[in-house]
């Protein structure tokens, strides 16, 4: 235990000098995730020279380890995921998600189609069912479409479990309009090519090891004319002053809230670090275009990417869209 103390102290930004606080008390803040990680041999924590590496927050890890470490983070946050989202974003994430779904306008109006087939929506990294619920509500209540169905996919069984629990009492579950799938978004073998109308990923793509590969997989499963839509944090705000304030909040408050509410500082430290590592709006829109999508609002003569996303709340988050050409 004593060997763990300096590292824990560093994480908690406490000094090494003896204090009146006992070192064992600090253990209560430490998460089970970290305890697991500490037990792993040191060689697996840091990438060896000959391996391909990627980033996990600000750490550099071997590519084959990222998925399992992300899995550990989300397994540990699954149970209080929604409470934490509310606290960290001051409730604004609900507005973003509402706007995201409303702007996509899922569902088929009976007036525009003689025999509406309904849409097939694939919600990637949608474990807790936040987006799926809103999609189905919008399709049913706004567009009067009772056919549209959502496949909720997540790599993490714990997160999917939360979603199953929430949907178990809803009419959508009874009507068979929602199904669950445990899958890696980079390898969607269970999904046929050209079979999906709308592919959404909200606050998930940041955690993927190979983002470009996931985009290409999205392109494969979408029907011609299908839409890729992604709601994700952006690394920097448009206004430098607000950016400084925001960075204070995200690096100072969010890990602290995680520590107090969820007793898990490391997972939320990873969260803010992974936002910092995510490509900017323009770079990410370029990646979407490189996967073959048409970016909405891009002019035909522009060679550099100028459009294809919408900033939310000064650019804290952004909605990216791409349409698969027919």
């Amino acid at each position: 235990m004593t060997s763990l103390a300096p590292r824990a102290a560093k994480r908690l930004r406490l000094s090494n000098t003896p204090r009146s606080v006992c070192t064992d008390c600090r253990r209560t803040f430490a998460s089970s995730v970290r305890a697991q990680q500490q037990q792993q041999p040191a060689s697996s924590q840091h990438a060896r020279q000959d391996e391909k590496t990627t980033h996990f927050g600000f750490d550099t890890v071997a590519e084959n380890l990222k998925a399992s470490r992300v899995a550990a983070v989300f397994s540990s946050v699954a149970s209080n995921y929604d409470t934490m989202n509310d606290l960290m974003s001051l409730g604004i994430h609900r507005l973003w998600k509402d706007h995201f779904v409303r702007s996509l306008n899922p569902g088929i109006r009976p007036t525009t189609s003689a025999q509406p087939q309904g849409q097939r929506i694939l919600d990637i990294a949608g474990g807790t069912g936040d987006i799926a619920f809103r999609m189905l509500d919008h399709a049913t209540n706004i567009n009067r479409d009772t056919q549209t169905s959502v496949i909720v996919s997540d790599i993490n069984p714990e997160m999917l479990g939360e979603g199953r629990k929430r949907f178990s009492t809803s009419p959508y579950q009874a009507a068979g309009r929602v199904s669950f799938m445990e899958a890696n978004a980079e390898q969607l073998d269970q999904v046929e090519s050209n079979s999906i109308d709308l592919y959404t990923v909200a606050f998930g793509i940041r955690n993927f090891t190979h983002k470009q590969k996931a985009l290409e997989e999205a392109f494969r499963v979408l029907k011609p004319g299908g839409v890729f839509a992604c709601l994700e944090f952006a690394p920097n705000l448009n206004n430098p002053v607000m950016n400084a304030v925001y960075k204070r909040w995200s690096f100072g408050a969010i890990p602290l809230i995680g520590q107090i509410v969820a007793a898990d500082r490391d997972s939320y430290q990873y969260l803010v670090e992974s936002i910092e590592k995510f490509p900017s709006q323009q770079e990410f829109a370029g990646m979407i275009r490189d996967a073959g999508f048409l970016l909405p609002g891009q002019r035909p003569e522009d060679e550099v990417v100028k459009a294809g996303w919408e900033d939310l709340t000064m650019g804290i988050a952004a909605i990216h869209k791409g349409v698969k050409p027919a």
Partner: protein
Amino acid sequence: MSLTPMALRSVLRTPTGLRPLLLQAPRALYHSYEHAQPPPYREAESAILSSAFTYVPTHGFTQEALTLGAKDAGYLDISTNLFPKGAFELVKYHLTTQRLGLKDRIQFPDGQMGVGRKVRSLVLERLRANADTGVINRWQEALALMSLAENIPASLRELSALSDEIWFLSGDISVDTSWYTKRASLSAIYAATEVYQTTDKSTDFKDTEQFLDRRLEELRVMGGAVGNTLEWVGFQGGALVNLLRSKGVRI
């Protein structure tokens, strides 16, 4: 995009950070005979918008028309996400295509008409396009969409582009400050006449034609009055300066 050796040299001489600016396709803000204007829409966009436009007379400038058009063009209901501004994109499509099509709708015989007469027939021709495409009964919806706060900048840009197009096609080659006043006044007249046209019930838009003639006449009288006043003010100013100089004031 192909580059001539000269152009390549100038690109290589600029700092690396600025090169993307030079490599962009030239987007002239003026009428250029050397550079072909790029098409205003990508292939998929024009396919959806042109088939959606056929639904405007029945469904109006709405998301529904856009959706039906997308389905006709072989796209899905959800594909309308290609247009972030929704129904306004249909309005803009009409404005853009009719502006670019104006030069093919009308041909002037050489040296027969003055610039003023040409402007008048160009404005009438552009207004006739609203009726020919069958959207005149729905045009009030379009005006309403254009007046929404988020659409005003794009609408004004389109209006000024139309007014510029009309002056260009009429053969106006002024390079003084009247370049600006001409475009501003024509924009105002065009916007007013178009609003009038939406309520015009006369045959062949005779009333609109008369309305336009009255506005152009007012502009002529106003322009004359302003010109005369300026000339008078300039003359009086000069006289005043000379008067003061004769009294020994050092000006």
